[in-house]
């Protein structure tokens, strides 16, 4: 005799489950904040800076990833490489001036992801497959263009993208600007609403007359722009770049998106949630560091918490 599966008992999506999850989220964040504030050194300038740094670079990419996930395309495995490649383009073009270099890098990021977005939107090609193809092409293309060498900047004037303004790291300002712009697009523009509808039910969106291909392409363009911004910030910070710069960013970004509570199937979520997700993960890492946990344990505990939070979110929603 087989047992009734746990899922039937929990009745995901039921009113009770949703309230339970909301309560758990509030309690969790409150507990984390309390834990953090009682950690010696957390509020020191040094650790706040470390926190802001940690969230800025990955956070930009996570904002872009949010749009990809929201439109129902799960994730992209190519954004990290886009970060690196944009950084390379930026560094290599500094000879033309800082602003033109920035625009070139931005343009590059947009073109790379727009191409993917069009294939995925117009032909409904599989998003993960296309991103893996893009990844290979980017890595190969970059190796071809740079001959495997690190790029060092030609020219000066990177101050626009590094340093501080009023004591706050510039990267953090750019990140918060990205968050504000991203959330504005999502909540207040027509294309933002359309993207959510496409992620919620692409066939229904098509039947209502929405151009689903355009919506998906725009989502990818936003992701590319965000990745390019992150790349430029990284290039300015480190002064040189290669394709390792953005390695692993895809997983960190999607973790932030999921921890924030955006649904992996699309149609539900927001940029603010991703901001919360990025902050929560970074806070956990900083707190563990300050409390003297070894680097290994930090990684493990972070991984377990990410897993737990993702499980918690999904219980509050139907599959």
């Amino acid at each position, binding site marked *: 005799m087989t047992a009734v599966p*746990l899922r039937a008992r929990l009745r995901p999506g039921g009113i009770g489950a949703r309230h339970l999850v909301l309560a758990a989220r509030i309690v969790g964040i409150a507990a984390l904040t309390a834990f953090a504030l009682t950690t010696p050194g957390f509020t020191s300038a040094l650790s706040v800076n470390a926190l802001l740094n940690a969230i800025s670079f990955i956070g930009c990419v996570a904002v872009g990833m949010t749009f990809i996930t929201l439109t129902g395309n799960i994730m992209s495995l190519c954004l990290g490489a886009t970060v690196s490649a944009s950084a390379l383009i930026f560094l290599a073009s500094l000879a033309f001036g800082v602003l033109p270099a920035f625009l070139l890098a931005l343009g590059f990021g947009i073109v790379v992801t727009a191409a993917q977005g069009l294939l995925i939107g117009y032909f409904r090609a*599989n998003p993960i497959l296309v991103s893996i193809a893009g990844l*290979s*092409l980017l890595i190969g293309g970059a190796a071809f263009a740079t001959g495997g060498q690190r790029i060092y900047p030609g020219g000066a004037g990177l101050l626009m993208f590094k340093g501080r303004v009023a004591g706050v790291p510039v990267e953090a300002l750019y990140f918060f600007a990205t968050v504000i712009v991203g959330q504005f697009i999502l909540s207040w523009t027509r294309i933002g609403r359309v993207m959510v509808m496409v992620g919620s039910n692409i066939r229904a969106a098509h039947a209502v007359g929405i151009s689903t291909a355009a919506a998906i392409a725009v989502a990818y363009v936003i992701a590319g722009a965000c990745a390019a911004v992150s790349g430029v910030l990284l290039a300015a910070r480190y002064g040189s770049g290669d394709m390792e710069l953005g390695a692993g960013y895809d*997983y960190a970004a*999607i973790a932030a998106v999921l921890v924030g509570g955006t649904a992996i199937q699309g149609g539900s979520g927001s940029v603010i949630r991703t901001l919360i997700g990025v902050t929560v993960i970074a806070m956990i890492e900083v707190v563990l560091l300050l409390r003297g946990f070894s680097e290994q344990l930090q990684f493990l505990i*972070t*991984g377990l918490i990410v897993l737990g939070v*993702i499980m918690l979110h*999904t219980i509050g929603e139907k599959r």
Partner: protein
Amino acid sequence: MTRAARYLLTPAVRPFTIMAATIVVLSLMDRGTGYFFSVGTVFSVMQLFATLGLVALGLGLTLLVREFDLSVASMVGLAGAIAVMTGGADPWIGVALGVCAGVVSGTLQGLIMTQLGLSSVGVTLGGLLTLQGITYVLTGNATVSYPNMAVALGLNAPIAGLLSVRSAAALAVFLLAGLVMTYTHVGRDIIATGSDRRASRIAGLNTDAVVVGVFAASGACAALAGVLLSYSLGAASPVALADVLAPAAAAAIVGGVSVVGGRGSAMGIAAGVLTLCILRSGLGAIGVPPYVHDLVTGGILLVIAILDAPDLMRRVTAWRLDHAERRDAALKGKSS
């Protein structure tokens, strides 16, 4: 398009066509110098196959049921670490414990997914990070060396010049998988679950058991790959092989596995893996710079992504009909 060409491009046959085409092209590029068509090349291809193949097999099985096991990347490292740390005296203990870890990890993740109704991306992402963390803890964030040199050398010793113990083991696993998938109802159940899970469940299939089993197998395959790799390198490193995931997924897809489930075979995956390994080794043997490998792989994947795109035919048909109608209307306009 001729009927023969269409047959060669059907998803079941396509992996072998691509593999054959790759061999042909590389042989032509070789121009008779014998660098490509040599025993040494085959050996190095099979050495790559030994690791990538097993991971791609496990990942491919999860793709078949319409899921995606992100955690294979760190399972390779973790199993390697476990084996190296416990298999000094008796290598088989290391193998057993490593593969066990893979089975346990896959089963746990599968149970979480099926019992709580969660999507595999979230769960296996958490699994990826957690397994990575466990690897760090176990190895103390340092490279652990494997004392048993005899085993390390023995695993890589060439057999008849073409294979090693490692690649032979991988081939054996593929053969077993292929037989099980084709001749037993396990294969049919996996395809059914991937093809239409709801319908299979109503028909009476225990789809939860199928999914859990597939993830256990995926964990075991990745673990075996990690064990053999670490043994043969004589060391286990805590660095996550994050760059094993994309090639493994690419190999499975070139091997004919459909990303939306319900289509694929073990032998097809083998062909896909071989194609990528042949590209990597072959291009190197001929003396082409390594970036060509990435570009060619990316190109092949892009073509497959477009060919398999569900709306490709819709768009092409609609465009063709629009074009025809506009042309007719123009003709009618001219004549009237």
